[in-house]
C-alpha cells in the first residue's frame, strides 16, 4: 500500500511538471490576458511582481511545489483569490454532480444490465434493439444531450429552470434539484456502457459450468444469479465503474458550462482560457488526486468482492 501511495505522489509530481512545462511553451501571457488591450504598464508590473512572474521559471516551479507541500497552491491570476479557496468553493458543486451522476449509473445501469442479461441471453431481435439504444447512449455527446434535455424539460414542459443550479448554501433541496438534468446528461453514456458491461459479464457467467451444475442440482435461478453469478461478474464491473467515475468528472467540464454550474470543470476552462497557471495546476493536481484516490478505493473493493486477491497477496 505504501508503494502505491508513493507511486501516486510521483504521478502528481509528474502531472504538475508536465502542466508547468506546457504552460511555459505555449504562447500568450497571463497578465496581458487579464488586463486586456487597455493594459497599463504600471499595473502590469505590480501584478507581475505580485504573482511572482518576474522570477525565473525554475524558481517559480520550486516555490509552487514548496507551497503545495504546505497545502498552499498559490493565488489565481484571473480571480486574484487563493487557488485553494476557489477549488474548495466549487468542490461541493462538482462533487454533488459527480455523485448524483454515479448514483444514476448504479441505480439504472446495473439492474438494467442484469435484466437484459437474464431475459436476453442470445442476440435476438430484442437484443439488437438494446444494442442500438446503448450504442446511441454511448455515442451521443453529453453537451448535445444536455441541450435536448433543456429543450424538453425546461422550455417545453417547464419542469425545470435552465439555470436551476443553486449552491448548497441555499438549501440541500434546491441544490439537488439544480443537479438533476446535468447529472442525467453526464450519466447517459456511462449508463449505456454499464448496461453493456453488466449484460456481457452476467451472460458470460450464466453459461459457465458452475451455473449449469447448480441448475442441474435444482438451485433456483434467481438464487444462482444473485448469490453466485453477480459476485463473479462484479470484478470487471467494478473496474469499469471506476473508469466511468473518472469519465463523469471529466465530462462535467462541458456540461457545467451548458447548465451554468460553477464547478471545477468550468473553473478549469476559465483558467486555461486566461492562462491562469496557478489555478490550472491546482485543478489538475486536484483531478489527479481524485483519480488516484478512486483507483485506491477500487483496489480495496476488489479485495472485498474477491477474497482470492487477498489470499494471493
Amino acid at each position, binding site marked *: 500500500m505504501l508503494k502505491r501511495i508513493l507511486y501516486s505522489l510521483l504521478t502528481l509530481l509528474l502531472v504538475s511538471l508536465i502542466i508547468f512545462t506546457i504552460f511555459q511553451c505555449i504562447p500568450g501571457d497571463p497578465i496581458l490576458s487579464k488586463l486586456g*488591450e487597455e493594459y497599463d504598464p504600471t499595473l502590469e508590473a505590480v501584478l507581475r511582481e505580485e504573482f511572482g512572474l518576474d522570477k525565473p521559471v525554475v524558481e517559480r516551479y520550486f516555490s509552487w511545489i514548496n507551497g503545495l507541500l504546505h497545502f498552499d497552491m498559490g493565488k489565481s491570476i484571473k480571480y486574484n483569490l487563493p487557488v485553494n479557496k476557489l477549488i474548495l468553493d466549487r468542490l461541493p458543486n462538482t462533487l454533488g454532480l459527480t455523485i448524483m451522476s454515479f448514483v444514476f449509473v448504479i441505480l439504472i445501469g446495473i*439492474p438494467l444490465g442484469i435484466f437484459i442479461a437474464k431475459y436476453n441471453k442470445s442476440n435476438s431481435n430484442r437484443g439488437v434493439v438494446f444494442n442500438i439504444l446503448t450504442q446511441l447512449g454511448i455515442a451521443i455527446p453529453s453537451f448535445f444531450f444536455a*441541450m435536448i434535455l433543456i429543450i424538453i424539460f425546461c422550455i417545453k414542459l417547464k419542469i425545470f429552470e435552465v439555470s436551476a443550479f443553486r449552491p448548497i448554501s441555499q438549501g440541500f433541496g434546491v441544490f439537488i434539484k439544480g443537479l438533476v438534468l446535468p447529472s442525467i446528461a453526464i450519466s447517459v453514456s456511462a449508463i449505456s456502457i454499464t448496461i453493456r458491461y453488466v449484460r456481457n459479464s452476467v451472460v458470460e457467467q450464466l453459461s459457465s459450468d458452475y451455473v449449469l451444475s447448480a441448475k442441474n442440482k435444482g438451485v433456483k435461478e434467481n438464487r444462482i444469479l444473485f448469490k453466485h453469478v453477480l459476485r463473479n461478474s462484479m470484478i470487471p464491473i467494478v473496474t469499469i465503474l471506476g473508469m466511468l467515475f473518472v469519465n463523469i468528472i471529466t465530462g462535467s467540464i462541458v456540461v457545467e458550462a451548458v447548465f451554468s454550474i460553477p464547478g471545477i470543470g468550468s473553473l478549469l476552462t476559465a483558467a486555461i482560457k486566461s492562462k491562469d497557471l496557478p489555478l490550472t495546476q491546482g485543478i489538475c493536481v486536484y483531478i489527479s488526486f481524485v483519480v488516484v484516490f478512486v483507483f485506491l478505493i477500487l483496489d480495496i473493493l476488489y479485495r472485498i468482492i474477491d477474497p482470492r486477491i487477498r489470499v494471493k497477496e
Partner: protein
Amino acid sequence: MKLGRLKKLLCCLTACAFLFTGCSASDANKPNDNNAQQEKQDKIVVGIPQDFDSLDPHLSNATGTQEVMFNVFTGLVSPSSNGEIISEIAESYTTNQDMTTYTFKLRKNVKFHDGSDLTASDVKYSLDRVCGKTEDQKEPLSSAYANVIDNVIAEDDYTVKINLTSTDASFLSKMTLAIIPENSGATQAEKPIGAGPYKFISYTPGMSLTLEKNDDYYIEGQPKIQNAEFKIYSDMNAAVFALSNGEINYMNMTEDYISQISTDKFIIETYPMNTVQLLGLNNDFEPFKDIRVRQALNYAIDKDTIINMLSKGAKKLGTNFSPVMPYYYQDGLEDYYKYDIEKARQLLNEAGYSDLKFTCKVASEYKLNTEAAQIIQQQLLEVGVDMQIETIDWGTWLEDVYTNRNHEATVIGFTGKLDPDGILKRYVSDYRKNFINFKNNDYDNLINKAAVEVNNDKRAEYYKQAETILAEEASSVYIMDPSYQFVIDNRLEGYVFYPINFIDLRTLQFK
C-alpha cells in the same frame, strides 16, 4: 413468479429515480406563480458572458467588469448618455487658467454603502491609492493617473484640490475613477464598498454577482428596482435557453444569437457601440510601407457587405473614430475610399504587388473579428490578394500583435472611451500601443497639441484633422462601429444607453 421479483426490483428502482426527479422538480414552475411574479418585479436578472476580473475598482481593467461595477461605484464625474461628462459626487468644479489645478466641491449628502459619509479625505485616498501614494499601496496602479496627478489636497471636508504635473485636456474624463472609503483598499476585492446606486451583497466566482438597492443613494427615487443579479453565462446557448425560459431580463448578444430570441417577451434594441473594428495593417511590413497598397486594400474591401452580414445597423467608418461622439467626429471620411475593385487592382499593379500575400492574425475568442476576417479574405481574393488567416488566442494576440507588433495584419475591435485622446493617441509614432507602426509627424503634432488644448472647440478641430490624416494615409482599413445589440424584457422601461460600456440599472423599472 421468478420474473416477478426481478421486475419488482427494477420497477422500484425506476420509480425511485423518477420520484426523486419528480419531487425535486415539484416547485420548479416558480416563475409562473404569483409570488414569483411579484419577486421578479423587485429583481432584475442580467446575463453577462464573462466573469469579473477583480471586484476592486482600482485593480479591475476589464470592460465587462466595469460595465457592471459602475452600479456599485461612483466617481467625481460620470458619463452622460450623449458622451458628455457630468458631475456625480462632485457638485461643481473650477480650474485655473492653464487647467493644471482642479478644485472639486463635493456633494454633502453622499454616503458609502457602509453608512459613512463620503468626504474629501476619501477622494484623496482613492486618487493617492491609484498613484501609489498611500500606506497600503506604495506602487502606482495606473500610469494614466500617476503621471498626471502631482498631488491631491483635501482643503476641507467637501473640497478637493488636485494639482496636475501639466495640462491634460482629458483629465476630467479620468475623474470617473471609483471613490472608495479611506483605507478600504485591502478589502475591496472581496467586499467592494462604494457610493453607487447598488450595494454589493455576494459574489460566486463563475456564477453570479448579487446587488441590492442602496437606500441612501444621493439621487432620490433611484434606483427603482430593489435587487439585481448578474448571472454569468459562459455558454451562449445556455443564455439563449435561459432567456427563452424567462430567467433573464436583459442581456447583450451578437446577431446570430439574438435571432433565436422570441420577440413575444423581449424587445431587441440596437445602439452604436463606440467601438472601432479595423483591419489593422502593420505599416512596417514591406508591402504595406507603400501607401498605394494600403489604399488598394481600402478600395477592395466592401464595408457595407461586412456590416450587412455581421452587424446590421452598424456605423460605417473611415477612420479610428465613431460618429457616436459627434463633437469630435469628422464627417464624410467613411466613404473616402469607396468600394472600387478596378482602382484597387490598378493601385496594386502600380505598386508592383499584383500577387500580394499576407497573414492576418485574429484572436479566436472574438467571433465578430474572425468572421469579418473571413469576409475580407474572400473580398481580397477578387483583386488577387491572398490573405491567410491565423487564429490565435487572446493572450497570444496581446503579446504577439499588440505588444511585440509581430504581425502583418490583424482584425480587431477597440472599445471606445469617453475622451478622444485615448482613442486617437493609439497612432502617435512613439506611443507604446501604436501596434500598426503608423508614423506621421503632422498627426503626432495634432494629437499632442490637442492633449494640452484648453479650448474645447479648438481641441475638437485638432482631432478632426488628425482623423483626416488617418484616412488620407490609409493607415489601416477602418471597417465599422458594430451595433450593441441586446434583448430586454418588454416589461422593463427606462433603459438609458451610454457611449461607453455601462449597464445602468438606476432608471430601469418594471412597468
